[in-house]
């Protein structure tokens, strides 16, 4: 790693440390900055949302599950009956527990089961 990229990395790590205090706690909704994520809908979720993907501003320090419940669902209430039955994936990887915060530019995918054949 060159000095330049290292210093950029350190700056980034510090800024995310500062804004999220390192711990997985419920952030105060005031003094929050927004980040934007990409939300991608598959199969029935695409049909119910009537869109295949959107860019969505969410508060920083938001877990994937919180983003789903607090940002995606209010915008697409038709997804409600499906929400407990989907695979939630961040950047093409399944997330089972809310153990991380979404970062700027992350892709959140909603993948419901298909049963036809």
């Amino acid at each position, binding site marked *: 790693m060159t000095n330049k990229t290292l210093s950029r990395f350190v700056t980034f790590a510090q800024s995310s440390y500062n804004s999220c205090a390192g711990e997985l706690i419920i952030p105060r909704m005031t003094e929050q900055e927004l980040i934007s994520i990409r939300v991608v809908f*598959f*199969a029935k979720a695409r049909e119910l949302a009537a869109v295949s993907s959107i860019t969505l501003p969410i508060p920083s320090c938001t877990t994937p599950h919180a983003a789903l419940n607090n940002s995606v669902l209010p915008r697409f209430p038709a997804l409600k*009956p499906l929400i407990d*039955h989907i*695979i939630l994936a961040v950047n093409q*990887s399944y997330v*089972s527990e809310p153990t991380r915060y979404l970062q700027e530019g992350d892709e959140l995918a909603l993948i419901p089961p*298909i*049963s*036809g054949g």
Partner: protein
Amino acid sequence: MNGDSNPSINASDVERYSRQLLIPQFGPSGQQKLEKSRVLVVGLGGLGCPAALYLAGAGVGTIGLVDRPNDVVEKSNLHRQLAHSEARIGTNKVASAAIAIQMLNSNVAIEKHESFEPKNAVQLASSYNLVLDCTDNVASRYLVSDACAVTKTPLLSGSAIGTDGQLTFYCKTADSPCYRCIFPKPPPSSCVGSCDSAGVLGPVPGVIGTLQALEAIKFLSCMNLTEDLDRRMLLFDGSTCTFRTVKIRSRVNGCDMCGESSQLEIPAFDYEGFARGGKSIDKKALDVPSHCRITPEEFAEIRRSGSSYKLIDVRPSQEFDMCHLDEAESWPLKSMEQSAGMDRIAEGTGRLIIVCRRGNASQTALRHFLDAGRTNVCDVIGGLQAWHQVIDNNFPLY
């Protein structure tokens, strides 16, 4: 093969399988492994047809075939279920697929099974090296997965509807998830269309079923490729012709089926009830008085008598455009249930007859009319499907 001749592949087979024998990672040893393999294909529809045909073409030794006992080839299957044929409409799907496989490759031993049910699922799964889930409904998907989880039989699970498809491996290794690990609760029925109700473009299950066969051939021939669909799910969006894969989770310790403290007894489990568990149809909505329902024969009599009535067809508009009775007026249930529609319901007093595809949506609509205080309204039992069966077989069945 680099000048080697392999004594256990006979000359005729070398010719038949030459194009795949030329693939370095496959070769004669892959062919021999395929010939010793036993694969069970559950469901001989849009996925099972291409999957079974490609497996047969490749020379899988034994192919087991199973579908619902009463599932016969219908005209509406032929746009996607290409192992069947016009001449075999009305034939049991297992029998029809067996004929197609035999015609393609008579080397293949075919085992025809009458049903895949909770009482025989475990025994069936345990006698195969690999199971392909090519079924078309939620209950069967849980049953196939449970049987594979308990017998530790690798399961390649494909699915398709509309223009979307999915494919993944379940139960491949001790760390692999089963279907319940990924989808512990079945989705409500309103969120799971079937190809019968929601439609499907034929090549979409064709793509997924074909990839199912490809993954099966690679697995059974032990091709040492670095990555397969274990803990990865392939997503196919046919509307944009896009493939993606997502990493999915490993086995869940607390899984109802493959978890350490699982007590699920497959033969005693009510799969149909479980699949209906999330059912969103309001029970009360379907609770319509029987005197408000008429048979297709009674409706035919009303039509003949020349008495006045208004026929309301509550199917979605594209189904209405496909076919409808001449006097019918289109009023899709969906728009009826919007507030403007609910206002209109209370209007008028003349006789109303409601019809839909199968006699379910018409009951929901009937309930709305009754709740709005309308009298002199009824629906047709069995809908247009029953109309086709009992009154007019020229009316399209779909």
